[in-house]
């Protein structure tokens, strides 16, 4: 089976425990306006303009985004850093895009990793059918589950999709031994208000799967240069450079509610 991979990063130290290799699968059903990987959104192989500099002269080159790879090919890349995984209790993280969009390929990869004894994490928005979601949850060692907005209206407006399916997947999650880390990108004006944070806490208290930790990713105007490179306009909704999220408040609220928290992944 083949998948469309748009990047493989080694020494990824913010995508789960230990030293990890992160495999980015292309394609995403969401269109978060703050997305810092816009080139990962479409499923098809595309092109992006990349800057190249030699002796001060700059040129822009069309460069392919996405590569069709077999599970074996991806596995060969993963296995390169096995020693580091062992020393650091790390492993591989599948991210995206939304890795569950290529669930067949993802499941095959997870299976192969387990045969090799490599720890796996899946970084997901949770936007998938319950059948796909539960299969992946049952196969991976760790889920990094993103919650963008607990408010459905807000979720729809900022990501282009309802959060109904996402929250339902999270509520129904009940896999013994599965480690679950919730990740919340704090976007000014979207999900960093007191109301939104409190509602998220209340929601998380209702789910069955134990939450190991909640990670907050503070907003930066990340990746907007990539929009230009793709020939796209960054969203007008993007907060300006100076806008800061109230990370400290989020951390203390969640902490007070009994969650282990962390700034950054």
């Amino acid at each position, binding site marked *: 089976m083949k998948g469309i991979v748009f990047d493989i*990063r*080694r*020494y*990824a*130290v*913010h*995508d789960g425990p*230990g*030293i990890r290799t992160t495999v980015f699968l292309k394609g995403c059903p969401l269109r978060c306006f703050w997305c810092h990987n816009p080139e990962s959104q479409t499923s098809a192989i595309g092109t992006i303009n990349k*800057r*190249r*500099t*030699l*002796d*001060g002269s700059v040129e822009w080159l069309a460069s392919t985004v996405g590569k069709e790879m077999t599970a074996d090919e991806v596995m060969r890349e993963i296995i*390169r*850093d096995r*020693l*580091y995984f*062992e*020393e*650091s*209790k*790390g492993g591989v993280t599948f991210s995206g895009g939304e890795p569950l969009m290529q669930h067949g390929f993802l499941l095959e990869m997870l299976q192969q990793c387990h045969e090799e004894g490599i720890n796996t994490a899946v970084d997901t928005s949770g936007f998938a059918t319950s059948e796909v979601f539960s299969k992946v949850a049952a196969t991976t060692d760790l889920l990094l589950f993103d919650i963008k907005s607990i408010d459905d209206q807000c979720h729809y407006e900022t990501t282009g999709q309802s959060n109904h399916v996402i929250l339902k997947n999270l509520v129904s999650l009940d896999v013994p031994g599965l480690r679950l880390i919730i990740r919340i990108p704090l976007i000014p004006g979207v999900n960093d208000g007191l109301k939104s944070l409190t509602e998220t806490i209340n929601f998380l208290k209702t789910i069955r799967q134990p939450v190991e930790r909640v*990670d907050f*990713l*503070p*907003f*930066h*105007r*990340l*990746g*907007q*240069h*990539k929009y230009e490179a793709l020939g796209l306009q960054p969203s007008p909704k993007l907060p300006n*450079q100076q806008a800061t999220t109230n990370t400290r408040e989020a951390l203390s609220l969640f902490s007070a509610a009994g969650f282990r928290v962390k700034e*950054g*992944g």
Partner: protein
Amino acid sequence: MITERVNKLRRQSLDAINCISAERALIVTRFHQSDAAREVSAPVRRGRCLMYLLNNKTICINPGELIVGERGPAPKATSTYPEVTLHSLEDLDVLHNRAKVSFKSDEAVREAYRDVIIPFWQGKTHRDKMMGNMTSEWKAAYDAGIFTEFQEQRAPGHTVLGKKMWSKGLLDIIDDIEKSRASLDFFNDPQAFEKQEELAGMELAASALIRYSERHAEELVQLAQAETDDKRKKELEQMAAVCRRVPAHKPETLHEALQHYWFIHLGVITELNPWDSFNPGRLDQHLLPFYQQDLASGRLTKEEARELLHCFWIKFNNHPAPPKIGVTALESNTYTDFSLINLGGVKEDGSDAVNEMTYLLLEVIQEMRLLQPSSMIQVSKKNPDRFIHKTLNIIRTGFGQPSIFNTDAIVQELMRQGKTPEDARNGGASGCVESGAFGTEAYILTGYFNLTKIFELTLHDGFDPRTGRQVGLHTGEADKFSTFNLMMEAFEKQVNYFVDIKIRGNNVIEKLFAINLPVPFLSLLIDDCIANGCDYNAGGTRYNSSYIQGVGLGSLTDSLTAIKQHVYDQQTITMKGMIQALDSNFQDYQELRKELVFNTPKWGNDDDTADRHAIGIFNLFFKAVDGRQSPRGATYRINMLPTTCHIYFGQVTGATPDGRLSGIPLSEGISPVQGADHCGPTAVLKSAAKIDHIKTGGTLLNQKFTPSFFDDNESYGKLTALIRSYFRMDGHHIQFNVVNADTLRDAQKHPEKYRDLIVRVAGYSDYFNDLGEDLQDEIIRRTEHSDC
């Protein structure tokens, strides 16, 4: 944590201006003009010379200090060694006016040089004898920048104090000399007389240092008498008592141990100007028993011990490396003197050596933040993670120390060379990264070897385009090499040719030192010179090694990969075309250059297409050097480190097939070409581990990080795992360079030099080059903020 006294001494050391002191040169000249220097054997002459020096040089005791003794008359007043190399008046000018690391000389110094030192030594120095004995082939290769010569301006050094002197005084050593003398066999040993002379020189040297410490004691007593402050008066009296005991007797307290070592250090660097000055080696091991006894007996508190260690540290920083002459003075800042303190590792019995003194010394390193002594940690699989975490906490502050070494690899390297497990475990690394058995080995570095330049010559049938001379062998026109392997055979012939030239030169230089400039004082310290009645410079130590240091592995690997791919495999350009491009420095070949820079596999990315050439070069160089013998009985070995020589070697090397322009620095150590690695640190370390480090005496690998990778315990854990993984693959050394905002600004201007630079953005990391300018600016601001 730092007392007022230490603060003052540290400030004084940092503020002191380097200057040339003519004192040593004048005393040595006066000695050589006297009858005492005539009609005696070399070891006795050198022993007497040291005696005369130490009896006549100025005693310097700085206000407030607890550990005493300076090589010159004041901190940073730097001695010269006219018996080795002679500074001309022009050299003094260059050093005086040099933009970086200048050495000032006043009218008195210039006068002494003009009227006394130069007239006496002109034409009579070691360097004169040495140059007079080199062949024309050697000179041509040397001028072309094929290799450098370490023993041209400095004496052979590269050795470290072992365990012996921490439990012996010089009077005990004189007893040992007596025993050795008593066992001389004048009936059967044709060398008996030479040995007797050497032992006589050693005894003179030992007595000289004892007398030197007494002179300090006398001065301290006088100062104490004149002192009005009761507290300082008591200190001075106590210091006088210490100087009466050591180094004559074995030290009994921490204070005595530190003063004992410091006198020994001064003895070594006053006798001659050996490379890497000298260093106390496994300091945490050596000092622990004194520290524990002092604490237990109530003689010292931990804070008092810390203050003594601070004072000890500052002494090293007062002593810059002796400045060079000629082109070397002009082009290279005489850097620090590479006293590398070793911490951690394993004990003689192989068990974990990390102790409470290790942690105290790490704190001292952090508190002192001085260039000298420099520091390293030895990491064995037996050492705890906490030890590494404490070290990372210092590294994150970005002053380049401590560097990190693999004990288990060092022990294997030394054992491969025939050392016993105990001698290997008592060893470590000194200088930059050089493995050695401390207290038992003379491991002399002889010069850097420009592998990339030799390849340039191979492409030109042995002709050097820069100097316009036929420097190498005629191995054939490059466009006649019908296969890659034929080209490599020619390269191997050239390497062997230049290794032969280098070794022939080394063997002569080694003899010159053994005959003319023995070091009876250093020979007291390193086993088994006394028992053998044989000088350190003549092969008297238990183990003798000579090193040639390969430079340019990354640049050459990438060049071979490029030729293989473009000329032989894909045939997108002919060899002739490639050489034309190189000779024109890629003028009118910009598209080719882009192919070479951007679309050709590079060393450092865990890509066998490139990495196998690194292995090939390494094996070829190893084969050419390893195992050859020198006249003093040393075995030649290789290591892979450049110090700063990759810059000089780059200047003399034309454009290379990896897309490097003429004159640009070569890659350093075994690190990838600057900016050529783009798969992150795990890939770099995997590439680096593909060469067999165990067959070297040291390799050097640098990795850049921004401070954000040192954020919290979790990131320390990941860096620790990174280090442990590299060491599991037998990597020898890794140094983390934590970059500052200035580096990032330079990266914004010259992205091609920094393709490897990863920065943490926000919860994730990215290549700095790949970020938009505004985000780059933000990261620069953030880094500025977290700079310490």
